[in-house]
């Protein structure tokens, strides 16, 4: 079992200006050596195996601006991400376990940025792929 962190970085000003996450979201994981592809893009392909635990964190490109990860949608037979909080804080992250062997399973990430109430959702979203080992 491996634990993989996926950092979700949002250019909040860019996302507000475009009303889209396209080219305004950067996903980076720490599993490139096991086959993850397209690091630091909206379409990150994270290499996983069954039993792996995946953690998503989110923060904005400018520390002053606000972003919140509101939803991760993925076929529940592969992973059921849930929100968790760091102890003694209201800062959250999302976590899910890979439940089934997979070839390629796409998912989407929804965020709220700035003082907007509207969720922005990845259009050309990330996916999980089978790890090399």
């Amino acid at each position, binding site marked *: 079992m491996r634990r993989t962190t996926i950092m979700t970085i949002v250019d909040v000003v860019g996302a507000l200006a475009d009303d889209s996450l396209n080219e305004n979201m*950067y996903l*980076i994981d720490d599993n490139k050596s096991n086959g993850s592809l397209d690091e630091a893009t909206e379409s990150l392909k994270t290499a996983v195996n069954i039993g792996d635990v995946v*953690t998503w964190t989110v923060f904005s490109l*400018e*520390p002053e601006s606000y972003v919140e990860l509101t939803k991760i949608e993925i076929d529940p037979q592969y992973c059921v991400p849930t929100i968790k909080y760091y102890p003694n*804080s209201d800062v959250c992250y999302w976590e899910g376990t890979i439940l089934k062997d997979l070839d390629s399973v796409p998912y989407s990430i929804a965020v709220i940025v700035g003082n907007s109430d509207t969720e922005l959702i990845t259009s050309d979203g990330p996916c999980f792929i089978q790890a090399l080992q």
Partner: protein
Amino acid sequence: MSQEITVLAIIDTEAALAANSLEGNIYFIDNLRKTGSTGVGTSDLNSMANSSHWATGEQAYEPLFNWLVFPLNGVVPTLPRDYIRNLAKANDNKLMNNIKISHPEHTNPTSKTEGNSDTSPKPITNVQMPKLDFVQTKIRAASGEIRDAGMKLIDREGSFVQATQPDLDYMNHILPRITAITGEAVDKGVLFPAQYGTPLAVDNGWYFSATVSSAVPGIYSYTLHITLYKLEQQNENEYIWEPMCFTHDLKITVVSNPMINGFTWAGLGYLPLPLEEQPIYQTSETFK
């Protein structure tokens, strides 16, 4: 106001320390992608800095660069800067409270056992002490001096790493540091870097910033000096964050284009209102 440019460096510290190289393990993101930066999201960033005038020809301020560096293998950087210390303190208090509750005769002078009028506190004996075997860390400064790092080791979910059978694969890496910015852009007076303090909850309150001289258009290289920290076990339950120094080259392109309002794509004087729609002014009628 100045055009604030953030250059974020995200480092896979685990992979970089294993490979002893930043190559392929560092990702740069700036907020100038729409105005012409290239290589955003790669290790080969070329940031575009516009000139310091508006489209109308009016004087604007020089662009201002901020560099922030975070480990990919850590808790999210938005946690308060004293989070780990405060967490340790809260944990200690909780353990002490548990002792008070389970052994009131040692900590509360007013509690009496039957037939005993002595109310003085008893020496603490036979108290079942909780196991306090968390991993404490020290840090080696650039001078070689070893100091207490002032924090217990946590994992990436904020739990303390136990000294017995520590799971170091999932530990929280401490923040890398930018220690200097040098190179052509600095030598030629295009970048004026300095380190500043900030109350923001990032980078322990320190960050590198630089103003850009926009009078000299061109492409200039500069070098970031970055220190990562590698956790080495010295003795049983004694760990030291050892500094490992790296450099990485980046570029900045200074152009004579005017500054741009990111919302209207125009200069100063154009408000961010949709041009095809007339603004609706509120009147007293609106509130009736």
